[in-house]
Each structure stands twice: as C-alpha cells, then as structure tokens.
C-alpha cells in the first residue's frame, strides 16, 4: 500500500476451464490446439434449432471445486441466458448461472506467506458453471473468429471483498490454482486462457466501515498482471481521493503493454444482460448421494496436506505452504520421504531450494527439471548415513538433473563418497599433529580457536572427503590426549 492511511478492498472473479474431454453442451472436443473451427458443431456454433445437453463430468468437476472450497452444493441450481452481442458469442447469449448457482458460500484458506505469518481465509460468494465464448483474432481492418473454444466448460469463482492487497490477491490466485490442480478440475494454465480474472477494487480510510466506490478491471490473464493492475488501481484511487476527487464507478481494461488500467468507453460496459432462466435446460438437480460420492473421491487438499505436514512431519507453516503450492512438488517431497528419510525438514528444504532452483533455472516442469523423487530421497539418505556430505549431495544433484542418472551411480562416478574409516582418519590426524607441533602446543595451552585450523588441515590432507563428524571426534580425542 502506497499510503498507509488507506486500505484496499479487493474481490476477485476467476474463470477457469474445467478439464473435460468434451464441451459443456455438445460432443465437440474441448482440447486445446486444434486447427481453426475444427472443434465445432451446429450446437456450439449456435445454428438455428440446436439445444444444449449438460456434460456430467463438467458438473462433477464443478461440484468438486465447490467442495474443495467448502461451499454449499445447491440441490437445485438454474442455468440462465446472459444476452449480449459479440462476434465470438454464437447464440447472442451465454449460458451461465445467475440467480441459483451450483455452489454457494465457502472460503479459500491462504497459507502463511512467510515464516511467522498466519493463514487467512478469503470468503467466497459463489461458484457457478458457464460456457466459454469463441475467440476473435484481430487483424488490420477485420477480425477473424474461431469457435473452437465456444462451449468449453468454465467455472466462475467469485470471492467476497476480503482481499486487502495485491500480494494477497496473488496468494489467493496461487492457492486457488493449487486447489484446482489438486482436484484435477483445471490445469490452471493462464497462457491458454485456462484461468482468467476480473478484479473489483475500492479503497477506504483505514478503520472506516463503509466501502468506497469500486472499479472493475477486466481482461487480466496472468498473476503478475493481476498484482500490477491492483497496485496501479489502488494508487490511482488514493490519488483521486487525496486530491479531493471522487472515484467513478466504472470498468477498466488492463493494458499489459503500458502496464496501466484505462476506463472502457461507456458503450463497452453499458450492458444490460437481460438474464432469464434458460428454457432449454431443466433445473440441475444434485442429490445428496451424488455429493457424497464426489466427496469420498476427493484427493487430499492443499490445506489438509499443509496441516498434516506441520502436525506429523514437524515442518513449519511456511515450509508446508511452499511445498503445497503445487501438487507435484508436494508429491515429490512425499516420495522422497518414502525412501525412509528421518530428517523431514532437511528433505523439505531440499525441495524448497535445490528442486525449485532446478525448475526455475530450466523453466521446465518438475518432471523434466529434476531427477526422480526417489533418487533425490536416496541422495539425502546418503547424507543421513554420512556416506556423503550435504555439499557433495548438492553437487551430485546438479549432475543428476542433467544426466538423469541415479544417486548411487552419480556419487560413485563423481567420487563424492566421504571417508568415515577411523583408521584412515586417525592416520591423517596423526600426520597433521606431527607436522604442526608448535600449533598443537598453543592449542593445548588454551587457544581453542585453533581447532578449526586442524580440522581444515586434516580435510585438506584427505582431499576433502573425510567425514567431518568423525574427523572432529578423532581430532578432539588426539589433541586432548
């Protein structure tokens, strides 16, 4: 917040594709990447006389999303027509849910954002189902329309205005994406339009109970843009208020090139959508046993997994939060532990540093960027048994990322195994003590600080492979003898 006298009130509306094979209302492929207008049929083209039929899996995924967000699942929900004209909207209306959505209430729990902070709950208003529109491709003087995306199932997740900063909005989106991926409802890929976001922002004097006038920012398709747009809009509104002005209730578009928001022309949002119940679809009925069956098929959710990591594995809240921001990362961690690692936090930190670094440096997905989790686990086990040092493990890991070879093979290949044999270490210690008689005398005379020097000399003599624990032990015994 640029000005501490104000606080921001932020609500998000997130649209995300549901991972179905076919579209919401017809048997066309919902897949991404087909040639123009290949995944279309009379239904999703809005030809005269066509009718929608609901995709059962889409409904199940929407219910799963609702359950994951602690929503109440409506036993009866209604589809509605939302009318507006746009070339990518084939029927002249979008089938959506309005008055009676599938999921009501609920919340998303934001995990601790740094060491020492606490989890926060962002309440949800609703989650509803709707169909996507096609895509307009703008050319100079003309536009081209592809309806492949028309009719792909979406859920819209609407939050209460519980978010207080751009960073928190980012955290909310990351957690939401994590949940959607855990429950396999959505892959949350923003670049394919799989996750889109509208933001409502207002500011008020800290301590005030009334909300200020809000603006809506549309067209945000990356987490970074959401955060930037909020920062920009909050600052803009505070400037207006500080200079005695009034914020106008209007809709803004995010301009990703200039990294600023600009108001839409009045025509752009002077919409009267004329919602009314979709007469071509009877009310959607969801029985309690259907909800129960979906509930029992739900995987562990990020928040539950975080709690378990803290409770059963002794991780800090922050460590648990980092690991669970991605389902694959958490699974990687758990597979590492399955090799029998005793020090869970070492494993957690390994994932948070070494594995995440590998992902960031290669910009590739986990499976491509890092060795198998089981090999990472074996590598750390070598550290636990003292076979190699932690530094040697890092060296080995870097090599494994490139070669894809196993832990044992890599450690052997790079000669990283450390010497723990007591007689070999004792011999090296004897040599150093003999060579440094003067310093030994000083040490024995009370200069304790020299101990490190001796350790260094022994390690040097052993080519760095002496097990530090054993070296320390034997050296101490011999020096004090």
């Amino acid at each position, binding site marked *: 917040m640029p000005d501490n006298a104000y606080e921001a009130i932020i609500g998000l509306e997130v649209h995300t594709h549901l991972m*179905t*094979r*076919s579209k919401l209302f*017809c*048997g*066309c*492929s919902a897949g991404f990447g*087909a*040639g*123009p*207008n*290949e*995944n*279309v*049929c*009379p239904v999703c*083209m809005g030809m005269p006389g066509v009718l929608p*039929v*609901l*995709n*059962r*899996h*889409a*409904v199940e995924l929407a219910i799963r999303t609702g359950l994951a967000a602690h929503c109440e699942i409506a036993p009866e929900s*209604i*589809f509605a027509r939302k*009318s507006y*004209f*746009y*070339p990518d909207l084939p029927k002249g209306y979008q089938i959506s849910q309005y008055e009676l959505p599938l999921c009501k209430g609920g919340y998303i729990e934001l995990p601790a954002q740094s060491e020492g902070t606490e989890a926060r709950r962002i309440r949800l208003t609703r989650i509803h189902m709707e169909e996507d529109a096609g895509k*307009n*491709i*703008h050319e100079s*003087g*003309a*536009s*081209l*329309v*592809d*309806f492949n995306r028309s009719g792909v199932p979406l859920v819209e997740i609407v939050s209460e205005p519980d978010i207080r900063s751009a960073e928190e909005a980012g955290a909310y989106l990351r957690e939401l994406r994590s949940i959607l991926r855990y429950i396999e409802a959505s892959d949350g890929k923003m670049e394919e339009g799989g996750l889109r976001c509208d933001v409502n922002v207002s500011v008020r004097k800290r301590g005030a109970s009334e909300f200020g006038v809000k603006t809506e920012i549309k067209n945000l398709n990356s987490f970074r843009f959401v955060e930037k747009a909020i920062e920009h809009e909050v600052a803009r509104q505070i400037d207006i208020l500080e200079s005695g002005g009034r914020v106008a209730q209007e809709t803004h578009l995010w301009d990703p090139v200039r990294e600023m928001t600009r108001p*839409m*022309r009045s*025509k*752009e949002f002077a919409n*009267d959508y*004329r919602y*009314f*119940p979709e*007469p071509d*679809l*009877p*009310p*959607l*009925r969801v029985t309690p046993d259907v909800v129960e069956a979906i509930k029992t098929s739900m995987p562990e959710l990020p928040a539950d997994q975080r709690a378990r990591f803290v409770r059963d594995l002794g991780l800090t809240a922050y460590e648990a939060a980092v690991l669970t921001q991605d389902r694959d990362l958490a699974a990687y961690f758990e597979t590492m532990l399955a090799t029998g690692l005793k020090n869970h936090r070492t494993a957690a930190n390994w994932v948070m540093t070494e594995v995440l670094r590998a992902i960031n440096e290669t910009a590739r997905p986990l499976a491509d960027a890092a060795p198998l989790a089981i090999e990472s686990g074996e590598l750390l086990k070598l550290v636990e048994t003292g076979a190699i040092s932690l530094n040697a493990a890092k060296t080995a890991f870097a090599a494994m990322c490139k070669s894809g070879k196993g832990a044992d093979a890599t450690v052997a290949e790079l000669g990283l195994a450390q010497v723990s044999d007591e007689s070999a270490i004792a011999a090296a210690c004897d040599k150093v003590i003999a060579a440094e008689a003067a310093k030994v005398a000083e040490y024995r005379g009370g200069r304790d600080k020299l101990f490190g020097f001796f350790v260094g000399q022994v390690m040097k003599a052993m080519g760095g492979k002496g097990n530090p624990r054993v070296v320390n032990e034997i050296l101490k015994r011999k020096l004090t003898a």
Partner: protein
Amino acid sequence: MINSIGPPGMRLSVMADSKISVEQVRHVARLARLELSAADEAALQANLSEILQYIDQLNRLDTSAVAPTAQVGEAGAPMREDVVANRPDPEAMLANAPARAGHLFKVPRIIE
C-alpha cells in the same frame, strides 16, 4: 373474460398515455441490435404501448404469493457422458458463412 378483450374485429381503444417513450424504444432497439427508422420508432412506440397497456391487466392479479413457472417439462436436467462424439468438419460448419478467411469466419472491425 373474453368480452373484456372485445369481440374479434372490434379494435381496442388505445389510452392516451404511451406506455413507452421514443427514448425507451431507441434504448431497447440498441439492446436488440435493430436499426430503426423514425417511422419504425413511431410505429413501435404505438404498437408496444398498446400491447403493454393490454398486458397491464395482469396487475389486477395479486401474485405476491405465487411462484413463477419458467418451464413445464419434467424436472431435472439429463446429462450426457463426457465423450467426444463430433469429428472435425470445418468446411461443413463454414458452408453458410457470409464471409470467411480459410477456416475462420471473417467480420469487420470489432467496435469495443
């Protein structure tokens, strides 16, 4: 009662007040994306006023305790399994296109 509507052929007398203004006609035409001439606007104002006047008889009914009926079919939306059943056939889907570019529909500049 039917006699309250008047016997067929007997024209309903139109009340003096219009139920809808020309501005409203224009607003609705904008929503409906219909270009109207001045004559169209005047005719529609008269027609719609007369029809809305007629519809106003519904206000004689107290419906405060009545639930709305949106549909009269059987309740519960049937669902289809999530199976891809359609094969790509862009040529058939574009066969009626007023203008196209390859397998894309072509439209003039989109005014936001």
